[in-house]
C-alpha cells in the first residue's frame, strides 16, 4: 500500500501519517505487552510467590523506565531527576491515600491538615500526578534556561540536584514523611490484591511512549536531540519540545511511583534515591534509550540478570542445579553481587555499546516496513508552485566584532525572490559570519537585516527560520541517526504548521528532487560527503523558506558533482519557489549559478555585480583571485 499522498495528506495534525504513527505503534506495543506479560506469567507459575513479586516489581519498574524514556530518549538530555519526581509522586500518593486512622500513628502533626485527608487511592494518584507535574514545570524552566546557555551537562546537574533536594526533604521533614528510619507504611485496603491497575498502567505507558515518539512534538524533540543548533536553524524551538516531553514523562513516572508505593506498602527516603536511579537508568540504556522496545527489553534483561546475580551471590552455581564447584569463584559469589552487576552493566555498556542492545530499533517500525509495500519509482515533482509573492531580503551596514577582531564592517547585500545571489571572498572574509548574523546565531554589533521590511536582528534563530530564512551548514549538521526521509520530514512538519496556506511539497518529492531517492531509508550519518550536502539542501528546502541560505554547498565535492549541484540548487529553489543566497569558494559553481555576486574581503564588500563584471573587477582579482586564479 502506498503512502497516502496529495495535498490533503499534508495536515499539521499531531501525527504526520496515521497508519505509520498510530495504527502500527498501537498494534506493535500491544504485541510487546502481550509477550512481556506472558513471559512474566510463565516465570511466576514456575517460581511461586517470590516469582510473583519479582514479576510485579518488573512491571512497575517498566512503567517508570518507559516514563524516563519519553524524556531521555526523545530529548537526549540525561536526567537523574526522574526518580526525584518519583519520590515527590510517591510521597504525595502515600500521604493522600493512607487512611487518617493509619496516618495518625506516623505523622500526627502533618502540615496543612494532611493527616485528616482521605482520598482513596484513585484520587491520590491524580493528586500525585498533578503535584509532580507542577514541580516539573518549574524544573523544566530551569532546565530550558541553563540548557540554552551551557548545554545538556548543566541540565543533567539540575536534575541531579532535584534528586538530592527531594531526598533531603524526605529525610528531614518527619512531620510530613515519617523521616529517615520510620518512613511511611500503611494499609489502604491491603496491598494491591489485583494486578489489573498495573497492567493498565503498563499498557498505557507503552502506548503513550510510542505515540509521543511518533507525534509531531516527539519528532521535533528528536531533531533537537540530534543537533540542537541545526534544529533551531530549521525553525524548531527545542525548549518547547523538551518541556512537553518532560511533563508527559513525569506524569507516567508519577503513576509508576504511586503503584510502586502501593505495592510495597511502605515508603522510605532511600526507596527513591541513588540505587533506584541506577537501576532504572541501567534498564533504560542497556535496552537502548532511544527506543521504547529497547526500554522494555532492558527492563527484562536487567531484571533477569540482577535476579541471577542475587541468587548466584547466595548459592553460586547451584542456581543452575549444575553441581559445579563454585569455590574457586567464592571471591565473586558474594552478597551484594547484584549491585556490582548493575554498576558493571552500566559502565560496560557506556564503554562498549553506549546505544544499548537495540539502539533505536522499534518493533512496530519493523512491522510497518515489513507490511508496507514500498514505492519503487521516485515521485515526479508536481508543477512548480505558482507562488508569485515577491520577497526581499536586505542586509545593510552589518558589523561584527569578536574580541578585537573585526569580522564584518558595514557590509550588506540585497536579494529578491527568484534571484540567486552569491557571496565570495577569501578565507576569513566574513562570509559565514554574515550567514550566522542573518540566522541569529551570532549577534551583530550593529546593522540591519530586513526581510520584507521586517527587522530580524535580535530575533531567535528558530523564529528567523520560520520567518523564511533557512540555511545549510558548511560543516554538515544533519540529524545523524534519523533517516534521510526523516531529516526532510521533520523540517517539513515545521513548514506545514507555519504555512498551511501554501501547499508544501511532499517529503518524497523533496527527497527525489535532491537526488537522494535511492538513499531515502539510510541514516544521515551513513551518507557520503556529496549526499550529505544534498540532504542539507533538501532539508533546508523542506522548511519552505523564502530564501535558502547555502553555506559552501559544494565544499569537498568533485568538479562533476559541483556542476550537478548547480542544477540541484536550481531545482530545489524552484520547487519551493525560494530565492537563494550562496557562499562558496568554487568559482565555476558560483559563476554558473548566480545572477549577481558580492565579493567580501576582510569584512567589507569590495565589489558587486553580475558574474561577468565580478570576473573583470581588478579589486576582486587582487583580493580573491590573486595569483592563484587559473
Amino acid at each position, binding site marked *: 500500500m502506498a503512502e497516502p499522498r496529495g495535498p490533503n495528506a499534508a495536515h499539521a495534525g499531531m501525527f504526520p501519517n496515521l497508519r505509520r504513527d498510530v495504527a502500527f505503534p498501537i498494534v506493535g506495543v500491544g504485541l510487546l505487552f502481550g509477550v512481556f506479560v506472558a513471559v512474566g506469567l510463565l516465570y511466576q507459575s514456575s517460581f511461586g510467590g517470590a516469582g510473583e513479586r519479582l514479576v510485579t516489581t518488573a512491571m512497575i519498574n517498566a512503567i517508570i523506565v518507559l516514563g524516563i524514556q519519553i524524556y531521555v530518549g526523545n530529548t537526549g538530555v540525561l536526567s537523574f531527576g526522574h526518580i526525584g519526581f518519583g519520590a515527590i509522586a510517591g510521597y504525595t500518593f502515600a500521604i493522600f491515600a493512607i487512611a487518617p486512622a493509619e496516618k495518625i500513628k506516623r505523622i500526627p502533626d502533618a502540615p496543612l491538615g494532611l493527616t485528616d485527608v482521605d482520598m482513596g487511592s484513585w484520587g491520590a494518584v491524580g493528586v500525585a500526578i498533578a503535584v509532580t507535574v507542577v514541580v516539573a514545570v518549574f524544573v523544566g524552566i530551569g532546565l530550558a534556561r541553563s540548557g540554552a546557555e551551557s548545554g545538556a551537562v548543566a541540565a543533567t546537574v*539540575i536534575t541531579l540536584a532535584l534528586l538530592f533536594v527531594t531526598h533531603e526533604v524526605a529525610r528531614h521533614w518527619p512531620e510530613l514523611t515519617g523521616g529517615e528510619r520510620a518512613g511511611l507504611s500503611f494499609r489502604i485496603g491491603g496491598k494491591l490484591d489485583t494486578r489489573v491497575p498495573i497492567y493498565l498502567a503498563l499498557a498505557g505507558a507503552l502506548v503513550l511512549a510510542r505515540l509521543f515518539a511518533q507525534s509531531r512534538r516527539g519528532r521535533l524533540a528528536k531533531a533537537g536531540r540530534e543537533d540542537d543548533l541545526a534544529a533551531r536553524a530549521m525553525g524548531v524551538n527545542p525548549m518547547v519540545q523538551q518541556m512537553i516531553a518532560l511533563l508527559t514523562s513525569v506524569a507516567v513516572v508519577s503513576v509508576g511511583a504511586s503503584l510502586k508505593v502501593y505495592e510495597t506498602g511502605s515508603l522510605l527516603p532511600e526507596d527513591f534515591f541513588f540505587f533506584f536511579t541506577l537501576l532504572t537508568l541501567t534498564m533504560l540504556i542497556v535496552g537502548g534509550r532511544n527506543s521504547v522496545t529497547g526500554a522494555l527489553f532492558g527492563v527484562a534483561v536487567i531484571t533477569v540478570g540482577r535476579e541471577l546475580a542475587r541468587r548466584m551471590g547466595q548459592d553460586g552455581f547451584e542456581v543452575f542445579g549444575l553441581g559445579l564447584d563454585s569455590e574457586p569463584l567464592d571471591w565473586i559469589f558474594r552478597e551484594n553481587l547484584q*549491585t556490582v552487576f548493575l554498576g558493571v552493566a552500566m559502565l560496560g555498556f557506556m564503554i562498549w555499546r553506549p546505544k544499548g542492545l537495540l539502539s533505536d530499533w522499534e518493533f512496530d517500525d519493523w512491522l510497518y516496513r515489513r507490511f508496507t509495500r514500498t514505492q519503487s519509482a521516485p515521485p515526479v515533482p508536481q508543477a512548480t508552485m505558482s507562488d508569485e509573492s515577491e520577497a526581499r531580503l536586505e542586509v545593510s551596514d552589518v558589523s561584527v566584532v569578536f574580541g578585537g577582531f573585526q569580522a564584518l564592517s558595514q557590509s550588506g547585500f540585497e536579494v529578491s525572490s527568484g534571484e540567486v545571489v552569491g557571496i565570495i571572498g577569501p578565507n576569513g572574509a566574513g562570509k*559565514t559570519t554574515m550567514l550566522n548574523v542573518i540566522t541569529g546565531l551570532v549577534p551583530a554589533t550593529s546593522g540591519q537585516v530586513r526581510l520584507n521590511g521586517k527587522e530580524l536582528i535580535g530575533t531567535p534563530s528558530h523564529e528567523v527560520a520560520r520567518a523564511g530564512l533557512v540555511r545549510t551548514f558548511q560543516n554538515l549538521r544533519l540529524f545523524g541517526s534519523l533517516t534521510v526521509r526523516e531529516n526532510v520530514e521533520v523540517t517539513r512538519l515545521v513548514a506545514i504548521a507555519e504555512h498551511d496556506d501554501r501547499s508544501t511539497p511532499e517529503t518524497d518529492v523533496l527527497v527525489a528532487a535532491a537526488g537522494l531517492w535511492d538513499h531515502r531509508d539510510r541514516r544521515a550519518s551513513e551518507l557520503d560527503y556529496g549526499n550529505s550536502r544534498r540532504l542539507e539542501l533538501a532539508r533546508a528546502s523542506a522548511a519552505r523558506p523564502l530564501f535558502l541560505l547555502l553555506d559552501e554547498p559544494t565544499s569537498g565535492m568533485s568538479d562533476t558533482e559541483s556542476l550537478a549541484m548547480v542544477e540541484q540548487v536550481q531545482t530545489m529553489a524552484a520547487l519551493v519557489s525560494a530565492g537563494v543566497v550562496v557562499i562558496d569558494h568554487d568559482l565555476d559553481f558560483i559563476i554558473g549559478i548566480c545572477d549577481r555576486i558580492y565579493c567580501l574581503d576582510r569584512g567589507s564588500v569590495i565589489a558587486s555585480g553580475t558574474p561577468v563584471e565580478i570576473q573583470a573587477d581588478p579589486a576582486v582579482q587582487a583580493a580573491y583571485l590573486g595569483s592563484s586564479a587559473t
Partner: protein
Amino acid sequence: MTELLQNLIDGLGRGSIYALLALGVAVIFGVMHLLNFAHGELITVSGYVAFWTISEGWSWYLVTPVIIGTAIVTSLVIERVAFSRVRGSSDFTLLLTSFGVHFVVSAIFLLYVSASVKTFSEPGWVANTFPIGSLNIEVYDAVVIGVTLVTLLATSWLIQRTMFGLALRAAAADFDTARLMGVRSDTVIRGAFALSGLLAGIAGVFWLMRSGHTTPTVGITPMLKGVLAALIGGLGSLRGAVLGGIVLGLAEVLLRSRLPDSVASLTEGFVFLMIALLFIFRPQGLIRVAHAERV
C-alpha cells in the same frame, strides 16, 4: 557582628574544601568535557585507606601523604580503566560512564568490606579552638583555610607559569587545536587527572579528619558539593570553581545559622533551591565562559 564574623570564618573553612573539590571537577571538565560524578570516589577510596592505616596505629601525619597519594593513584587508575575509553564521546555517555564508575567503586567496597560504617579516630586537635578577640576560631578551620590558600596559589602558578599549565589551558580552550599545536592529549589528560586527584586528596584529608568515618557511599556528598560548586561558578572556569566553592560553603553556614530551628535540618534543601533559582536567573553561573561552537 561577632556572629556574622564567626559564620564567615566557618563558611570560609567549609567553602575551602568545596573549592578544592570543585577545582578538581573543573580541571577535568576543561580537558575532557566530562562532568565527573565519580570525583567523590577518590574520597571513598582514601577513606578506607585512612581506616586501615589508622587502625594499624599510624599517626595522621603519616596518613595524610598516604591519603593524597591514594587519591592521585585512584584518579589515574579510573582514567585508565574507564574514561580513556570514552574520550570524545557524547556528553550523555561521559556522564553515565562517571556515574557507572561511582557505582562500581562503591559496590566493590560493599562486596569486599561491608555496608557498615567504619570509624577511625580524628586527630586530637580537630575540635580545639583558639580565641581572637571575641571570636572563637577552630584550629581546623584555620588549618583548612591556610592549606587551601597555599594549594590554590601553587595550582595557579602551575597553570599560569608551567608548560603543563599552558597545555592544560590550551586544551581547555580548544582541545582539537591544542592537539594540532603539538599538545599531547594523553599527557594533558593524565596530568589533569593527577592534579584533580591531588586536589581531591587534600580535600579528602580534611573531609575525613572531620567526619572520622567512611562507608561505600561516603563519596556522594563531597562529589555533589564539588560538582555544584563548579556549576555555580560557571562550568569550565577554574576561578569560577574556586569562587563557587566558597560561595556554597558560606551559603550553607549562613543559612543554617539564620534559619529557624524547626527547619534548620532542611538547610541543604534550601541551598539546592537557591542554586536552582540561580540557574533560572543567571544560567551561565557566576563567571561566564565563552564557548564558541563552529558553524
